[in-house]
């Protein structure tokens, strides 16, 4: 894979997205610990780099599909923090009016099309979004996110094959955080690199360090170019780690201590921040300013969520069908 270095502006944009994701996540967990919010929440802390380095290359026209662990993907793609927070809080002002919650975040005007709670299900749907773009002759691409565990379910196989046979403009992004709930990678997955499974579909498979924004950026660049050129799908495996366990409340006993410690050392967020400053893509002050503006955004989002109203009970009759039920 040929590596190009994005310009400083792009690098800082990636940082900005990563910061938004990280701060939002820290704050959600804080609100949960303080008892201000209650929900099943799947933190993506540690995986910020992947959607950030991909989404800086996407437009609002491009489609995104993700999973329960998808807040980072959604924020990077443009889901407004206020609407996210209100949705997490189950408020009527949330993007899904409080009906979906963290596992079903949706915001079509930024291309955030579907979030699924069923492992594997994002991929077939992505094929349909890709098909839509192909039939309409549009250059949109569809990014389908999923986990390492999901690469073992049937929907993965069917989707990659279908996308390959139909040459669909879909990018399958496996965010390999080495665990599926509490199951270590090799207990569920028979192959060393998920990217190698692309060969079963005569499709490029790119294996990258998911904590390296430049590597992810380049893999995505290549896949996006291929998809926009009508050459078909790509599988990207981005290796990473999630620091807050499967679900908030997970104490992580199943993760060997040395592995966890190595992951902390590899944490992309502080490393990337330092790298940007060291390599003069931004000054510490620039980044501080970004941090501050994001802090404010999250403050607003939390305040908005907390002060918003809960949905009315009558909502159970609405959105089941186009016509309200009796």
């Amino acid at each position, binding site marked *: 894979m040929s590596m190009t270095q994005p310009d400083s502006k792009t690098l800082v944009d990636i940082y900005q997205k990563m910061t938004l994701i990280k701060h939002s996540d820290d704050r959600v967990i804080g609100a949960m610990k303080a008892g201000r919010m209650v929900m099943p929440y799947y933190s993506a802390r540690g995986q910020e780099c992947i959607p950030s380095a991909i989404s800086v290359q996407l437009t609002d026209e491009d*489609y995104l*599909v993700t999973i329960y662990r998808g807040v980072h993907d959604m924020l990077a793609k443009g889901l407004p923090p206020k609407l996210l927070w209100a949705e997490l809080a189950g408020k009527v002002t*949330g*993007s*899904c*009016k*409080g*009906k*979906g919650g963290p596992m*079903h975040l*949706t*915001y*079509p005007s930024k291309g955030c*099309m*579907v979030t*699924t709670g*069923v492992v594997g*299900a994002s*991929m*077939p*749907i*992505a*094929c*349909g*979004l*890709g*098909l*839509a773009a192909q*039939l309409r002759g549009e250059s949109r691409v*569809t990014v389908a996110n999923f986990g390492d565990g999901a690469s073992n379910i*049937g*929907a993965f196989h*069917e*989707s990659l*094959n*279908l996308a390959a*046979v*139909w040459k669909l403009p879909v990018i399958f992004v496996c965010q390999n955080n080495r665990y599926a709930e509490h199951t270590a990678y090799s207990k569920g997955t028979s192959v060393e690199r998920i990217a190698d499974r692309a060969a079963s579909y005569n499709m490029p498979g790119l294996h990258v360090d998911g904590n390296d924004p430049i590597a992810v950026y380049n893999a995505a660049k290549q896949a996006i170019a291929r998809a926009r050129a009508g050459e078909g799908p790509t599988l990207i495996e981005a290796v990473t780690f999630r620091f807050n366990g499967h679900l908030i409340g997970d104490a992580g006993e199943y993760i060997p201590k040395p592995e966890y410690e190595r992951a902390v050392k590899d944490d992309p967020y502080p490393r990337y921040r330092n790298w940007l400053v060291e390599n003069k893509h931004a000054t510490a002050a620039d980044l501080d300013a970004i941090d501050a503006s994001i802090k404010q955004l999250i403050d607003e989002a939390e305040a908005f969520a907390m002060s918003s109203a809960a949905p009315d009970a009558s909502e159970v009759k*609405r*959105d*089941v*069908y*186009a016509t309200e039920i009796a």
Partner: protein
Amino acid sequence: MSEVKNFGDTEASKAADVNLGDAPKKAAPVNMIQSLNWALHDAMEADANVIVFGEEIADPEGGGIVKISSGLSTKYGNRVRSTPISEMGFMGAAVGAAVVGFKPVVEIMLMNFVAVCMDQITNHAAKLRFMSGGQTHVPMVIRTMTGSGFQNGGQHSDFLEAWFCHTPGIKVVMPSNPADGYGLLRSAIDDEDPVLFIEHLNNYWTPGAAPERGKKIPLGKARIHRPGKDVTVIGYSRSMLDIPPVVEKLAKEGIDCEVIDLRTVQPMDMDTILTSVKKTGRAVIVHEACRSFGVGAELSSRIHEALFRELKAPVERVASEDCPVPYAPPLEAAYLYTHAELEASIRKTLA
């Protein structure tokens, strides 16, 4: 090989004058295959967002195993595709395309195969409108066929409409004759919600009145097939082939049945049903799916709930045995309700 009983190769199929993809020269009787083929052609012509896919449905693959999609791929090219054997994959693809404004019509070759893609149908197609708070919706049609009587055995013959009726967010349509097939399929394709459209193998080759091209039949409305005053007999799909001869036989004895064809099973047209049963005071429900926990149970309980004081007899259910569909013809016959059982049930409400 006329001696080989098979899809598309029965005496009935030879009797009917199938005229795929073209307008009929005269309003001669047509069969369901013809009318559904017209519906697909007309829908694709009327709306460029209609796309069609499923196994074997393009013309190089034969235009569908009973040729319902014949001619579509030749005329509409890339909008019509045969798929790999990947029901989960292509059902999800239909969901995705529908979410951004296409109106996919996907075929599950035989109804039992919904079991390999239930997740996309019940957890996604049926729920995305609700879970997204109305931001997205899934205007797609799933066409499938099924039915006993072809020695297809336990994994190729089941009627599973009750599973989907118990899944809020999806509609279930089950036509019984060619004209309804046309009009209901057109409406299903237009509908803003996912629709499961279930066809019966036994009904494909039965000639019936030709549909008026372009005439849509609204979903959710039952049809009074025969007015009557003594007993309400409610059927849909295949049972609408069995009810009329039994009812006509009873008519000769002066038993005057009102026959209702549900057409849409979910949502059910309770107005029409309750108006009728209020009048007759008696009801019999007939379906091919096995009896227990079937559509008949819901209908029976709704009628009892609404008209308990008016009913002159408990509502009767006529349905198949609670067993897998067997292979050998005498067992297939034992599985399905018989005309005699139907007749006895109607008489029982009058006893």
